[in-house]
Every structure is written in C-alpha cells, then in structure tokens.
C-alpha cells in the first residue's frame, strides 16, 4: 500500500487512504478480484470512492515527451480540480497537441506522470487505457470530424457505446437538444454547417458523461461569433455534466474567458 499512500498528497486524504488500504488488505490475493496490484487503479475506484473523489481530475508531474530525432519537450506540471476549467495556451509548435494527447492517453507517457482522477495513465495496459479514456475523457478536436457512415445522433450514441458499453438514443437526442442541433439529429454529418459540426463534436465529447472534457483548438477555425458560442457551450455543458474542462489553444480570444491559464 506504499504506492497508494505515497501518491496521495497528505492532509485529509491520508485518513481516507489508510481506510482504503485496510479494506484492501483484508482481501487475500486469491480473493482479490483484480489481478496484479497497482496496475489497474481504475479497478480500485469502486472500492475507494471517497479517496479518489477528492483527487484532482487532472494532475501531471515532470511530464516530458520526445518524438524520434526531435528535441525533448518539457511540460509544466498541471493540476485541474473536478469541475474546474484549465486553459493551456501556447503558440504553434509548443507541443500543445502532444500535451493534450498525453493527458488523454492517446500518446503513451514516456517520462513523468499523468493522473486522471487519481489514476496513473502510464501504468495501464493499452486496452484498459482505451476503456478508461472512453469513460472518463471526452475529446473535442480542432477539425470536427465524424464517422461519416452514421447520422449525427448515431455519432453521439457510438461515443456512448464505446465509452460506457451502452447507448441511449433518448439521452443523445437530449444532448443535441441542449446544444441546439436536435433538428439535425438524423442528418448525415456532412450536411451540417461548421458551427453545427463543432456543437455536434461537443455533444460527442459529453456523450459518455466524462469527468473531464479536453478540447484541442476548439475555436481556432471558427469566426468570432461561433468561437464565442462554442466556448460558452463548452463551459456550460461541461458544467451541466459536472465535467472539468481542459482546453489547449493558441486562440487569444479564449484567454480572456478562462481564469485558470497555463502557458507553455
């Protein structure tokens, strides 16, 4: 249990951690439903609700990444609490997308540590990481692109399915309703306008009720009016679902709207 107690930053967490550790120790290895200690921390999640709930939704430490034959990129340590906003600003080439992919588990951590809701992404298997991403993280990309074979609403239900294993069309439609594109639900995504597509992308990101929405340049391709709308919708809908919001961008229009800003 060294691992757990060392991980939690002290204070009131320590008592919780201790309780959880005792709980776990009562389970003999044979009875332990999770194979291999330490690795799938997600699995403990069910046993440690109170301990993990108080963890920041996003926490990175000493994160570095290097592409082959390129200089290493060092990232500042990040912390984002549950339901909070974090804007990561940086110019092109500063590694914004790399950072977003690292904290969303699309890229494997090379050195340093990424924790989402207390879970160390670097220690998960690829399959577990994919599942974890699907259920905890909603992604919004700069170019809103979709599964073109599916309708708008089915793109949302697909995200529900991959994130949670189940889909619920009524909820998906309600989500589209909230984003003001319900009347486009049964249209092929190709028939949606740029602004509508970005709104659909937000709906997709929220489909699996993630704990955190991560957006990569969500507004830089949009005009002022749509950029404003999209950032408002992102903030409002994330808040509605209790999800934290992490945005990486070089779009200065956004900086004024979010207080908690880190610059790369």
């Amino acid at each position, binding site marked *: 249990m060294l691992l757990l107690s060392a991980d939690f930053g002290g204070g009131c967490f320590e008592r919780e951690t201790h309780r959880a550790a005792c709980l776990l120790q009562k389970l003999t290895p044979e009875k332990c439903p999770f194979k291999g200690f330490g690795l799938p921390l997600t699995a403990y999640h069910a046993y440690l609700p109170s301990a993990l709930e108080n963890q920041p939704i996003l926490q990175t430490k000493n994160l570095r990444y290097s592409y082959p034959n390129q200089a290493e990129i060092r990232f500042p340590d990040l912390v984002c609490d549950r339901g909070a906003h974090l804007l990561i600003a940086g110019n092109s080439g500063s590694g914004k*997308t*790399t950072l977003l*992919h690292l904290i*969303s588990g*699309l*890229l494997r951590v090379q050195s340093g540590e990424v924790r989402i809701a207390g879970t160390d992404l670097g220690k998960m298997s*690829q*399959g577990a990481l*994919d*599942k*974890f*991403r*699907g*259920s905890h993280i909603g*992604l919004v*990309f*700069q*170019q809103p*692109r*979709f*599964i*073109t*074979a*599916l309708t708008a609403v*089915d793109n949302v*239900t*697909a*995200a*529900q*399915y*991959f*994130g949670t294993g189940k*889909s619920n*069309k009524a909820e998906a439609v309600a989500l589209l309703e909230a984003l003001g594109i319900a009347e486009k639900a049964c249209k092929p995504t190709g028939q949606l306008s740029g602004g509508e597509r970005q709104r659909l992308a937000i709906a*997709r990101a929220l489909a*699996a009720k993630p704990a955190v929405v991560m957006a*990569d*340049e969500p507004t830089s391709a949009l005009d002022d009016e749509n950029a404003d709308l999209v950032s408002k919708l992102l903030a409002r809908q994330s808040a509605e679902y209790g999800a934290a919001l992490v945005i990486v961008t070089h779009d200065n229009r956004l900086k004024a709207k979010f207080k908690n800003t880190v610059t790369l």
Partner: protein
Amino acid sequence: MNTLKISFYNLLRKPLSALLTAVMLLLGTALVSVLLQVGTALDEGFRKNIRGIDMVVGAKGSPLGLILSAVYQIDSPTGNISRKEARALAQNRLVEQTVELSFGDSYKGRRIVGTTHDYPELYDMELREGSLWSGPFEATIGAQVADEFGLKPGDTFFSAHGTDADAELHDDHPFTVRGIFKPSGTVIDRLLLTDQQSIWDLHPPAPGDTLAEENREITAMLVKFKNKMGILTLPRYVNKETSMQAALPSIEINRLFELFGLGIAAMRAVALVIMVLGGISIFVSMLNALKERAYEMALIRSMGARRIQVFNMILAEAAILGLVGYTAGMVLSHAGLWTLSATAGAEFGIAIDPWHVMTEEIYLAGAIVFLCALAAVIPALKTIKMDVSKVLSDHAQ
C-alpha cells in the same frame, strides 16, 4: 449502437463496391450449390436405376447408347436383337436372372415398354392402384405418367410409333390401364409397362414370314449374374461370339460420370476462382480504403474503442458481405433448382428437392464467411497498428 451496426453502415457507405463483392460471392455460392445439388441428384438417379443390373444386352452400337436407352430410357434404342439368341444367353450357368424389354413406342412422349413382371420386381415396385397387367394391351403405368396425363385404372389410350410426341398413332389397338405404381424415384415412374405380346401384335412381321414365332425380336435384355465371374467372361463372349452387344452399366455410367466429372470439376474451379476473387476484392477495397478510414478509426479509438473492437469491426464488415453474398447465392441457386426440378424429373427421372439444404452447403457458408474474414485480417491489422495520436494530429491541420 454497437460495432456491428457501425460495420453495417460502413458497408453501405460504398454500396457499389460492396455490391460488386457480394455479387461475386453470390455467383460463386450459387454455382457451387447448383453443382453440389445436381451432381448428387445425377449420381443418385443414375446409381438407383442400375441396381441389380449387371449387364445389358442389345443390338450392336454405342455401349453408352445401349445403357442410356435400355436402363434409363433416355436415348433411342440401338436396334433389335433376336429373342432366340437372347434366350440362349439367358441359359448360361453364370446368369441368374434376365428381363426382356421391347420398347420404341410411346404415349405422348412417355415410353411404352413391353416386358415381363420381372421388370417392376427388379426395382421393388409397389402398386398404388389396380393391378399388374395380365395380358396384351393391358398396361400398368408409372406414377409420374399417371399424374401427368390424369390416367386412372380402366382408362384407355393409343400408343404411337416411335418416341416423338407427335408420332404416328397405332390407332387400331387401344391399351387399357390396369394399375398405377407408387412413385419410386426410378425410371419406371416415367414408363408405361405392358405385355411383350402387345408390342409384337402392333408390329406384325412382314407378310409371308412363316417363322414369325421363331424370329421374334426384342430390343434389349437386362442381365443379372450369379456371381462376379460373369462380368469377366460373359460380356466378352457376347461381343465376340454373338450378333448382340453387351454393355456393363457400372462401367458406362462411370465413363459418363468421368465426362460429367470433367465438366463439374471445371465449373467447380470457376466457382472457386469467383469466390477467391470476391475475397481479393474485399482485401483490395479495404486496403484502398485504409487511408481514408484511418481518421475515423482513430476517432473511434479516441472515443474509447479498444484495438480488438476495431479489429472485430473490420472483420465483421467482411463477414457481413460474405453472409449476404452466400444467402443471396443460395436463394438464387435453389430458385434455379426449383425451376429445373420439374423438367429434370419429367425428362430424365432425376429427382431434385429444391428446398433440401445439403450439409456441404452449410459448410460452404462457413467457408465463405471465413474467406471474407481472412481477406480482411491484413487491412484490420494495419488499421489497429496505426498511431492514433499521429493520425489525429495529422488531420488537424
């Protein structure tokens, strides 16, 4: 929503390409299914009818022609033989049983055969109605003939000279139907059997032939041997020492099947090539689509799909195509067999049950689905090996 649904919609996105592949698989399936069904039906039909017949004796000519005419009643007879000579052969100690056949006349295209009661006995025929014939111009007829022309015991009919439907009628001697056989799946279903004497009465000897009784002719004689020694010696003896010809049905039918077999093997090869082409078409179109689908697959991964799910999704897409092609092919093949079965039954006595699905056809389903899935394995592996992060960021610009 599930991966199967996405596979399905992905297929619909390129309907023409999917259709082309499905049509190839359809044709392959239909061809294999028809070959299997017809091949089996032919084999069964032919083997059923030679049961108990070791040798056929008839006029000199083509041995296959003799077998086809005397055993299957589908070819013209090779000519007549002397009954006396045939009876001499029947006395041979190696011969167990003989059946004399006199044919060449017909009723509305169905053949009339003058014979003895031994002939229906050879095929274990049972009566559905009435009785066997007991004298000249009485007939007991096959079930198929009876049903086709609505003949019942007590009805009368006139025979025609020759086997054409519009041949000249022997209108001076009506035949009376005495009985109808139960359907048996053998050649007798299509025949009208009567006493030999009726045939002789209809074809009187030339005027002035005083030895008419002596010179009676028959068309062919079916022979059953006492033991296998007969096969070794009798055919050679007949062909060398008599004016008759002997043919062995098993050998002639094997020869016929070798000919068929070549055709069937060739068609089977064609079917196989078409199906493999279907598989290659899946492989190529999926490989081509790899790049344009990479982003969507990365997107699906970013939504939380594991690699195995993406892999299965791509394999399922190919398997759906295979299943669609197979199902359509089976429907086509069995609909074709259905239209064919009436003619095949009436003209050749080959019974095809168009709604019977053979075990091999079920294996074929497995084989086709496997082939399609196999064709998709490499594209699927390539897809799941991609760097999700790189694909997503490359498309961001």
